[in-house]
């Protein structure tokens, strides 16, 4: 068990290290003037040189790399070329914003998907089931930004029920950031992107739950419970569902990680000041310390999610033994 854990942790660390290194050199080794992505070429040449020195870009590449690695060990991601602000401070808040959008909606989508999926497995072959499968697949097949646009169009602009985007109303920003997350205004802003994300993410847990349930229902102990006269809904929610939750639960962290990576799109539509939006903006500004750091953070979340999923699977499934 400990060996398994250590091995997985080591793999995750290796994965991150390779990504960090890859990202670092990708920015500097790809064709074109490497500093052109850093320093606006529209600047006066002497100003360019001054800026280069200011950001330490006049050092040899390998030196820059070692400095970068060294700083990473103390969570120093450098300074944004655009805001001159330490990147760590800049992305911290953004990550919280992303998580408050993604985590609750994903967990809700999972919860809903599991319930509906289980119920639909029970009612397999019914018209409702076919329709829901179609609907869920169609939602998953729809570009989430388009879904978001339609939601804004209808719920915000037409019905005027929700704000069109952003995280709080202008001027309503509380003094302390944490207060924001507990304000009604914030929840009002969260509602629409939350719903869109739930609609989009609903499909996977729904179908997964449905198919695991279908195989669980066929197993002997369910038949046995039925023969013993256990009420149907108790069989459904007590016996069958409990045993079908395992594959669902174990995929959750991994899917969460992927959802964070996918938040780029939904944050852009709703102008949600999260990590994904920050990254898109930073790419647009060639602010690569910020790009690298937000990429790294998103990667930590995805890698961490996969790791957690692996561990959970190992812990929860009695059939798996550790090598």
């Amino acid at each position: 068990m400990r060996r398994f854990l250590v091995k997985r942790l080591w793999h995750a660390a290796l994965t991150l290290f390779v990504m960090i290194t890859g990202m670092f050199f990708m920015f500097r080794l790809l064709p074109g003037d490497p500093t052109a992505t850093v320093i606006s070429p529209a600047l006066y040449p002497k100003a360019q040189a001054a800026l280069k020195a200011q950001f330490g870009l006049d050092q040899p590449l390998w030196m820059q790399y070692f400095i970068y690695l060294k700083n990473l060990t103390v969570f120093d991601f450098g300074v944004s070329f655009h805001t001159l602000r330490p990147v760590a401070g800049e992305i911290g808040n953004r990550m919280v914003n992303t998580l408050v959008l993604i985590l609750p909606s994903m967990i809700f989508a999972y919860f809903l998907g599991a319930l509906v999926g289980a119920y639909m497995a029970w009612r397999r072959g019914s018209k409702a089931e076919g329709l829901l499968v179609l609907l869920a697949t169609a939602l998953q097949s729809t570009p989430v930004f388009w879904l978001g646009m339609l939601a804004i169009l209808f719920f915000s602009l037409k019905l005027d029920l929700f704000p069109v985007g952003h995280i709080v109303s202008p001027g309503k920003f509380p003094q302390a950031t944490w207060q924001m997350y507990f304000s009604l205004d914030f929840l009002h802003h969260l509602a629409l992107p939350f719903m869109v994300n739930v609609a989009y993410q609903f499909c996977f847990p729904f179908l997964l739950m449905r198919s695991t349930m279908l195989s669980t229902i066929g197993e002997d102990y369910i038949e046995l419970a039925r023969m013993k006269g256990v009420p149907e809904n108790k069989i459904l929610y007590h016996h069958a569902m409990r045993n079908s939750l395992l594959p669902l639960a174990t995929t959750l962290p991994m899917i969460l990680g992927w959802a964070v990576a996918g938040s780029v799109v939904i944050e852009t539509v709703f102008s949600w000041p999260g990590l994904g939006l920050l990254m898109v903006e930073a790419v647009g500004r060639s602010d690569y310390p910020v790009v690298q750091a937000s990429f790294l953070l998103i990667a930590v979340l995805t890698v961490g999610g996969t790791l957690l999923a692996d561990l959970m699977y190992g812990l929860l499934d009695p059939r798996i033994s550790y090598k």
Partner: protein
Amino acid sequence: MKRYVLPLAAALLSSSSLTAFAQGEKVPPVDFLTWPAAKYQHYYETSSYIAEGWRELGLEVNLNPEPFPNPMLGKWFSEHDFDVVMSVLSGAPYRMEPDFFTNAQFNSAHSAPGDWNVGEFADERVDELGKKQLAIYDADARRDVVLELQEVLYDLQPEAVIGSAISTTAINADNLEIPGYVPAPDGLRSIWNQLEMVSLTGQAVKMGQTIDQASFNPLAANIAEDFNNLSLIYDRLIELGPDGKPRNRLASNIIVVDETTIDVTLREGHTFSDGEPLTAEDVKFSFDYFKEWEAAYYKKYLERLDEVIIQDDGTIRFKLTEAYAPFILHTLGQVFIVPEHVWGSVIEDTGISKPQEFRNTNPVGSGPYSLNYWKEGQEIYFTRRADHFMKPKSDLLFVIFGSAEVVGAALKKGDIDVSLQPLVPTVVDEFEAQENLKIFRTYPNGYMSARYKASGEIFKHKALRQAATAAIPYEKIVDEVLGGDATRSASSIVPINAFWHNDSLPLPEYDIEKAKQILVDAGFTWDENGALHFPE
């Protein structure tokens, strides 16, 4: 690669096929560097209309949209890797200085990578006139030279000037009044208009934009939005008026003693936001400090500053290394006066290695506003200093949105009072139709043009530049692409910059016959496929 192979092949063909009359090589395809269609639809569309016009001349034109900012900016400014570039230069108050859009852009001395003469245009008369106007401090005398310079440029056509898109912004009239509105080129972003804004709700004026402040460190700033907000907090000696003329801000008088000596008298009795008096020492300190620490943006403007001397308590003398007429607007009008009692010891106090690293999140300035809070990436709140000589009327709250689309929607919904983000020209009438919204049209001093690479194989021919300029469907571009919301100009100094603009130059018109005639006269020919060939 292809570009070099094709003419060779064409040459081989034409020499072997014994054509009856002498024909030069085929004009190679024109590489038209432009903006990505997705985010810069109007710029891209403009270039595609231009390309269509040129194709009628028998030119082969390849639109080459590159992602902005990179690599497009790199190809545009560093590598000069294009035959034509869809040049869109934004307006800014200091760009009202006539040097900027003329001499700085077309003097052959500025052709180095990164400098402004991206087309590597070279002409002796332009260089000479450009140098001449730099040494004339008297505006009227200088104006004559600048007008002549525009005339020469009009003939040589280093670029085809399309015009400038009118920038339309809107406010929510239910919540906001701007009684003293002045039509500044930067519209609602202009400090003169922001000072005049009166909130009817009793709260701060809420303004939506898409770009967050980078920092409140004037030495580190280098984008327009940063300077706008910095000038709310810090004063300058001179402020460019909405009419393009310098107005005194901290200065009460300016005397040009000789070509290289300028005396500035300081406004009396003004204080910083922490109560400390603003003195001549602070002024000298600021200029010396910006120069000593090589503040990147200011490097160019402080190059000719030799020495700052305090004459007496209220007078400061600036010694220049050479005559430099734009000094007043470009240098005195841009350097912020920072308090010596803060910045003098900032390195020791904070342990940084240079002042550019200072975040300055709690800035002490002498400007009409002080920073109340800055929620990075979200909101910036400025509290007015009621006792400031510029008399700000309301507190200002800048709200940062993720995209221009959302800013527009938020304004429509009444979430914000002002959209600082220009509305896309074609949606303006939709905003106009909404009763509580008031539209402001501003005529920026920036402009769009097709900048030829005058040192390149194709557009080194003056006649071809002139003909290309006459083959652009200007009216269609203005009507269809820019939704009619654009002003045309014959010169790179646009009409809004009225004092310096040469209004005797006729607007270039779309006239394909005239364009062809220019080419015929210059010896250009067309082959049986209608492709243009260089003169023999």
